[in-house]
């Protein structure tokens, strides 16, 4: 169940250092400069349509995580919390962007509780709301132009999970057994 904490969060002041994380699946579609077979028809800064599948909305909402300077939820902690929700250990692709980008595009967001195993990470969950097709396409294009697309390998994602378990941010008893097994196989624990 999603719990709405507040209906509108004002844009952060420009001096405030914060970044927003959105999970992706296919990093190679999000290159600023098109390469490979895409380079023959895609302009620099354009988003290939297939990449929209990585920002698939539900009820016109898109899930992101706000990583604030003062927040206990660091990037690694957010990745650990998201990676442990999966059925097996896998690479983790994501894009980081400045929250000011949302204001530029007129995209509203709401603070809603996330559903990960880490309480602090849940608190930094946000929903981008009232998304139209045009806004979504503009958002994706802005991510390509201004965002930083990165990847944690399956092993690195496992380390993020392990760090959160060690720090007791995540209750190890709630971690899926398959994930634990895979971490052991990779020598992460």
């Amino acid at each position, binding site marked *: 169940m999603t719990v709405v904490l507040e209906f509108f969060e004002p844009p952060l002041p420009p001096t405030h250092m914060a970044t927003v994380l959105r999970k992706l*699946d296919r990093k190679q579609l999000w290159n600023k400069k098109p390469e490979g*077979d895409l380079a023959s028809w895609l302009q620099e800064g354009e988003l290939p349509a297939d990449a929209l599948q990585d920002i*698939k909305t539900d009820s016109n909402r898109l899930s992101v995580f706000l990583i604030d300077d003062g927040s206990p939820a660091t990037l690694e902690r957010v990745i650990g919390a998201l990676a442990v929700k999966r059925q097996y250990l896998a690479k983790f692709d994501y894009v980081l962007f400045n929250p000011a980008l949302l204001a530029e595009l007129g995209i509203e967001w709401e603070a809603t509780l996330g559903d990960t195993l880490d309480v602090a990470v849940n608190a930094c969950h946000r929903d981008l709301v009232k998304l139209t097709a045009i806004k979504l396409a503009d958002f994706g294009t802005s991510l390509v132009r201004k965002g930083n697309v990165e990847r944690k390998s399956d092993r690195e994602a496992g380390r993020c999970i392990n760090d959160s378990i060690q720090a007791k941010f995540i209750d190890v008893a709630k971690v899926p057994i398959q994930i634990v097994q895979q971490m052991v196989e990779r020598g992460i624990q």
Partner: protein
Amino acid sequence: MTQQVAPIGDEDRRERYVLRSVFEGINFAKEALYPNRTSGVGRSTGLDALGATYALLGDPINPWVVNLYDLSGAIEVPDRLMFLSSGTNLPNAFVVELDPPFYHVGTAGVSRAVEGASVRESLRKTIDRLFVTAEGEHFEDGMESNLTIGLATVLRQYPREAFGILKAELSVRRLSLRILIEVLHFLGRFKGRGTADEQFGVVTAYLYHTSPVIRDAAAVALAYMRDKRAIPVLEKVIASEKVNSLREDMKVVLAELKM
């Protein structure tokens, strides 16, 4: 006789979706219409006491089995063929039933050949249906899909035959990139019986695909495999890889394989 290979009492609903869609050729929405039907041994769990007993005991219910009884007097053959599920991360909790095989009365050698052909044909149809169903699926890193659950099921039960068919399908079928990515990631992490070398061969071949998205999926699959034989292959591919970001990601895979 019927070969009962697994209990079905605690099967997962999602697994039943997969089986029903694949083996009965219907869409998932029909689950709402037939909530009690399963594709397990007895085909149905919402039956009367006799039906339920047959289902548990694996006694044949399908009409075609009756014909089989008439024909199978001299030939010792199973009256139905089933797959025991053991998906990559899933319990051995459900049974996949192949299309009813057709047996001819004849010498044992001929009947075995016919039986083998029937299994292969059923496998081919099964894998075909998995790919058809996959066209409407959304795939996500770290999450099993109907496609991967189905592939794991057939590969566990008939590793050699199913892998041969899968390999052939990959070479002739025009799969969308996202389905191909899902298959490659699956091949990277699937622990098959006696197919590891072939899985490695298939995955490394895709390092030379024209699409960087697929080359990336192949490199990720090699990372999942954690097979050190990939080291020289990756070194060679990295040297010729023109997409900068992909080259960097491949270097990370290589470094982890060397650890």
